[in-house]
């Protein structure tokens, strides 16, 4: 009895240590830029770096573009599948899970060959084209999370019956989508969006192979050449992603409270 209780607690302790020790060590190190005292000097240097601002801004823009395109692609698709094509759901789930397991590198090679300068759609020929390609890539990466978030939101509200109820009250498709469906999955869409943002901000492989000035490659560059700044950057990235996670949790909790009340 005693032993079996100890096991899980130990496992949890190891799990927590896993995240906390590297984080604390990194944070402590990032404060040591000035000799003999703890200071925020590393953060000042990092935040003042114009390349930091440029790359962070670039990644933010790409993230927003990714989110917008993702929402436009996924919400109507997921709604339609839930409503009329439930048989297709296993297939769609399978497709949306693919990006999790297809290495980003494979995706990039595919893109490079498909959209190179001699192809029908020579996206790589121009920087704007490559940006678009990067956005497509991120959309692919974010697809599993975004789809799952939207799908969970849709499933939690019994889309089919709500649609029928609205129809029987005289509503047309526009009213149903914008007055009934969308307000009830807004929270789910938002949490998918935050997750997407967090993923795009920290992504390295795609941005680096497509050679775009994103935040991930900048992180790696600084990491390879400086001592204290990388730690500060890591902490900054952690705080940003943590804030996103926090927002997801806040919106998610709201929703859960709502559900529990039913």
């Amino acid at each position: 009895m005693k032993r079996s209780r100890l096991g899980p607690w130990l496992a949890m302790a190891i799990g927590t240590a896993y995240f906390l020790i590297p984080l604390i060590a990194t944070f402590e190190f990032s404060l040591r830029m000035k000799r003999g005292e703890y200071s925020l000097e590393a953060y000042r240097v990092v935040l003042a770096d114009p390349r930091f601002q440029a790359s962070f801004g670039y990644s933010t823009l790409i993230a927003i573009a990714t989110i917008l395109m993702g929402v436009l692609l996924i919400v109507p698709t997921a709604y339609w599948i839930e409503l009329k094509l439930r048989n297709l759901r296993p297939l769609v789930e399978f497709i949306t899970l693919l990006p999790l397991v297809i290495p980003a590198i494979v995706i990039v090679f595919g893109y490079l060959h498909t959209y190179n300068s001699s192809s029908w759609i020579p996206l790589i020929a121009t920087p704007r084209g490559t940006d678009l390609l990067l956005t497509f890539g991120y959309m692919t990466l974010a697809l599993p999370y975004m789809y799952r978030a939207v799908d969970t939101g849709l499933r939690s509200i019994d889309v089919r019956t709500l649609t029928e109820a609205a129809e029987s009250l005289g509503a047309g498709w526009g009213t149903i989508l914008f007055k009934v469906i969308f307000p009830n999955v807004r929270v789910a869409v938002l949490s998918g969006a935050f997750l997407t943002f967090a993923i795009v901000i920290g992504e390295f492989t795609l941005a680096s192979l497509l050679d775009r000035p994103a935040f991930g490659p900048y992180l790696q560059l600084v990491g390879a050449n400086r001592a204290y700044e990388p730690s500060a950057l890591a902490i900054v990235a952690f705080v940003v992603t943590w804030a996103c996670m926090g927002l997801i949790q806040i919106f998610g909790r709201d929703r859960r409270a709502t559900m529990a009340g039913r």
Partner: protein
Amino acid sequence: MKFLEIENLRKVYGAQVGVQHFDIAVERGEFISFLGPSGCGKTTTLRMVAGFEQPSAGSIRIDGRDVVGLRPNQRNIGMVFQSYALFPNMTVAQNVAFGLKIAKRPDAEIKPRVAEMLQMIKLPQLGDRFPYQLSGGQQQRVALARALAGSPQLLLLDEPLSALDAKIRASLRSEIRDLQRKLGITTIYVTHDQEEALAMSDRIVVMSEGRIEQLGTPFEIYNRPRTRFVASFVGTLNILRGKVIDPAKGVVRVDEQDIRLDQQIPNAAPGEMRAIALRPEAVTLGETRPDRNAMKGTIEEVSFLGAIVRIKVRFKDNLISLDTFNSSASPPPRRGDSATVTFAPADLQVLEGVEG
């Protein structure tokens, strides 16, 4: 011309028949139930009336207008679902107002109408609550108010009480019926619960395997079931196995005791076995009278159900279950006591078919 006329309705899914040969004519203001086990086609039929499914053949006319081909939002119906289907993002008042807003009624009209509907369902103060803040019974009442707010021509209810507790179910049942009577709205009520259908309906459509088994008032359905399916699905039955003694006079022998029927036994030769149906409430304990059959047996089980005491009396092979009212003055009999049960010849019904 009746208010709602359904003629020769048929719904086929691939090779499978969902509904067929479905004909009914419903009066204005009538309360009709579709009763049957799950998969009997009752919900499919309702959904074709609502417009959520398209019939494979046949016609549906509401007040003379053929609605087949019309979208649900063009049919002027009110629908109540088993799962309430309130819009979670809207308050109770917004839910009730939804249909009125879509119909572009002026605000000056919507507000008093919503208040009136909330008054009607006895939740006048809950307009600002959200659905998740209400109990299941309250949510279903709001769903009813929402369906009725736009004064639809036809009210359709799809097992509206199945998700609720027994006590709330019983009280909401009579509330729905009262409302329906007051508004005089023609109503179709789908249920698999025979007591619900018997208690609420003007007429009941008993369905099985996509067909109408019987259409009639609750009293007719219960007391004069036309098929064996209806007899066994509606209410409980004692089935006695007896040997035919005199088919012309209607005498059979059950566990060595002769009993009389009030009718001849058709197509039967002496010595053949027949199944005879008898409702539990037609049987009484004691009270031997010359115009009633009497059988002697032993009390095998006594179930005190509250208002009713259900007693099972065992003969040699057969068993008769009978219901008596609880009486606070006299405790029920005990297991093992011997007992005499009596029943009128008119209450016996010979079922079709020879028994092994």
